[in-house]
């Protein structure tokens, strides 16, 4: 070959660069997984009640709501955006779900309408970001505020009960039921992560999501409709919020007008703990699952250890801060 500067060794070209298991780079890449496992091991020793099937399933079920929202949030954050409206979308679509069930609309139809409403509410943020060229933080702050207002108007500030019909009982299965001994919300969570993983890693849209977050101008010049991608990710984020709202509403058999307060921050925390960069272009969906589980198991452990919920917030804050510092240190 008559090529230049032969100072660097060239590995055979069809061999992809892969990180060796248990190497230093691997340990760093999987640091959140290691942190999660460490957390589980340590708490198992301290609290004998922790490592039981019931407690683990219970914790997973509690985590599912945040974890599902975090899937949508991961996609938005990979495009270098942010979605502050998920909590508000959750409240409003939960209110829709409860009132549909209360009016004895067929459960399947009610669920479909609720999911569709989440998709549309998310798309509103997406359209403001894409067509209006508004910064995602501001755009979703606006939709968050607006949707909170709409929810109050719609519910008149009061909880909406799903009622005591057969219909409502069927609906509540989505939040309280079991399948093969595992709570339904956990099944839903696992499916959503599988779909999210497939979308991000094996579809064209997923590739475009990463590209958009990495360099919007280059993505546009590569012939990709970036506005379409933006609208898609915010719509999907709204959709995941609606899925979460169904679980919560079904579990409580009612929709609270103030549901989902602060959920956006928990979702963002899970995404960041999972190693996704707020600068966009970089992140893994399975990291987000681990991030959500860390938050969930940490809360559970502190509960078991009788730590007051005030201190739990401090503990959560410390873990997030630590994660971000470690991530930056090694960049």
């Amino acid at each position, binding site marked *: 070959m008559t*090529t230049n500067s032969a*100072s*660097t060794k060239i590995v055979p070209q069809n061999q992809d*660069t892969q990180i060796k298991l248990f190497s230093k780079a691997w340990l760093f890449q999987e640091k959140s997984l290691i942190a999660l496992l460490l957390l589980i091991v340590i708490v198992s020793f301290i609290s004998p009640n922790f490592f039981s099937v019931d407690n683990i399933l219970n914790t997973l079920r509690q985590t599912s709501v945040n974890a599902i929202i975090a899937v949508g949030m991961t996609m938005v954050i990979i495009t270098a955006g942010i979605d502050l409206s998920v909590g508000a979308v959750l409240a409003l679509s939960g209110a829709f779900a409860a009132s549909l069930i209360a009016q004895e609309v067929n459960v399947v139809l009610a669920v479909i309408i609720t999911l569709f409403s989440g998709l549309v509410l998310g798309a509103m943020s997406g359209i403001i970001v894409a067509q209006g060229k508004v910064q995602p933080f501001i755009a979703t702050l606006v939709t968050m505020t607006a949707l909170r207002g709409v929810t109050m108007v719609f519910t008149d500030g009061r909880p909406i009960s799903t009622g005591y019909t057969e219909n409502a009982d069927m609906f509540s299965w989505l939040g309280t039921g079991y399948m093969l001994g595992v709570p339904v919300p956990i099944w839903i969570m696992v499916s959503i992560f599988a779909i999210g993983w497939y979308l991000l890693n094996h579809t*064209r849209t997923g590739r475009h999501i990463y590209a958009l977050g990495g360099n919007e101008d*280059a*993505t546009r010049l590569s012939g990709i409709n970036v506005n379409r991608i933006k609208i898609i990710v915010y719509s999907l984020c709204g959709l995941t919020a609606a899925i979460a709202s169904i679980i919560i509403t079904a579990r409580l058999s009612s929709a609270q007008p103030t549901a989902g307060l602060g959920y956006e921050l928990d979702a963002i925390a899970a995404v960041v703990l999972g190693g996704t960069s707020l600068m966009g272009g970089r992140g893994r969906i399975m990291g987000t699952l681990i991030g959500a589980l860390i938050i969930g198991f940490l809360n559970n452990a502190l509960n078991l250890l009788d730590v007051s919920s005030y201190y739990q917030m401090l503990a959560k804050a410390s873990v997030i801060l630590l994660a971000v510092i470690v991530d930056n240190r090694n960049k």
Partner: protein
Amino acid sequence: MQPILKLENIDKSFPSVKALNRASLNVYPGKVMALVGENGAGKSTMMKVLTGIYQPDAGLIEYQGAAVQFRGPKDSQDQGISIIHQELNLIQELSIAENIFLGREPTRYGKIQWQQLYANVEELLQRLNIKHHPRTRLGSLSIGEQQMVEIAKALSFQSQVIIMDEPTDALTDTETDSLFEVIQQLRDQGQGIVYISHRLKEIFRICDDVTIFRDGEFIEQKPVADLTEDLIIEKMVGRSLDDQFPKADLELGEVCLQVNNLCGNGVVDASFSLRSGEILGFSGLMGAGRTELMKLLYGDAQIHAGEVILNGRTLELHSPKDALTAGIAYVSEDRKADGLVLSMSVKENMSLSSLAEYCTSSGRIEHREERQAVQKFIDLFRIKTPGQNQIIKNLSGGNQQKVAIAKGVMKQPQVLILDEPTRGVDVGARQEIYQLINRFRHDGMAIILVSSDMPEILGMSDRIIVMCMGKLSGEFSREQANQELLMAAAVGKKAEELV
């Protein structure tokens, strides 16, 4: 003559490569030393050793006759060594004066002494013949003027040694001229200057001596007068380049692209045609409207009037997607800003435009087919990468550029627009890119080559169009064209007036 700064037998290794192997560099007071070498030859590493960012593994640094060790950029700067990087380290929102004395503002009781600051800066600006007030916001200056501000900053440190890394890359010809005047002035005042550049013509214009690096090793230091351009290239690449611009004669095909009276932002009434197999060069000064015209053709800017006809069909161009679908691909002039997604891999970047061809109708990526297609181009383009999944940020400039070109070619366009395809690319990779361009035209592609590099555009094009202030100001065949004619058209003169 004793060098003011002397680096001798510097070694520097990184985990995977030996970046410097007994490399040496001498800087003499009152002289301009050129430092040349391909990308990856160790120039940047040497500069980082020199400014204390890296500590050498072995070797000696002597400054003003005494052995020294620089602890960091601030240390070396305090001692009188300034470096002006390719990417300027200035803050756009601050004024010229604030930029020059950032962090060193003269204060009394914590209050900045603005009068004194402005007076100091005024004096510096006058020395460099910069006609701006010290309070002017930096962002309102052209890139060339900003570079002058960097030089003013270097002077404010009373620097004895000033290093310039590819200073003319973003400059227009007039700006380059005034930069050279300043360099001469600094030299006459006794400062030692290191001038790093890929542009050999400039080295013959401005430098006294040349130091050549190859693969981290010192090859030679010689007075410019004892060298020729070909000799320098030969020593840089370690082999002789028979022909810098390989060009095979080719029967041109039919007209495939016809542009009629195209108007848009920065472009006035542009009309031209392009045949398949033809290389059409676009020359002109920076800001002449070449990139703006290309963005119109590529659907990335709004067409106000006129039409673009490809293969007899009038195109509706509203987005780059429309242009790509129609068969026009564009390789951007700035691969870092809008050419590549630096956080993605070689594979993901290369297939970004044509991913649909490697997907099922439901949008699932067929990973195997994608890998095979990408591998074909890696082999064809001789892209040096450890693997397809290598993050593109880690590749050299030349290899990054090849990926950017491959992205466009993979879409199998009828017309390929290359905007400054060899900017920041070393000599070896540059020639490979020329060979690739020739290969594309053999395959019947029509190529538009936008370049500010005169020898390149003269050497490669079948026909050259010159732009000036948004208009097409001249068109020359390969036989007619020469540097003087192109320059005359670029500044809007008629050829006769020049002679």
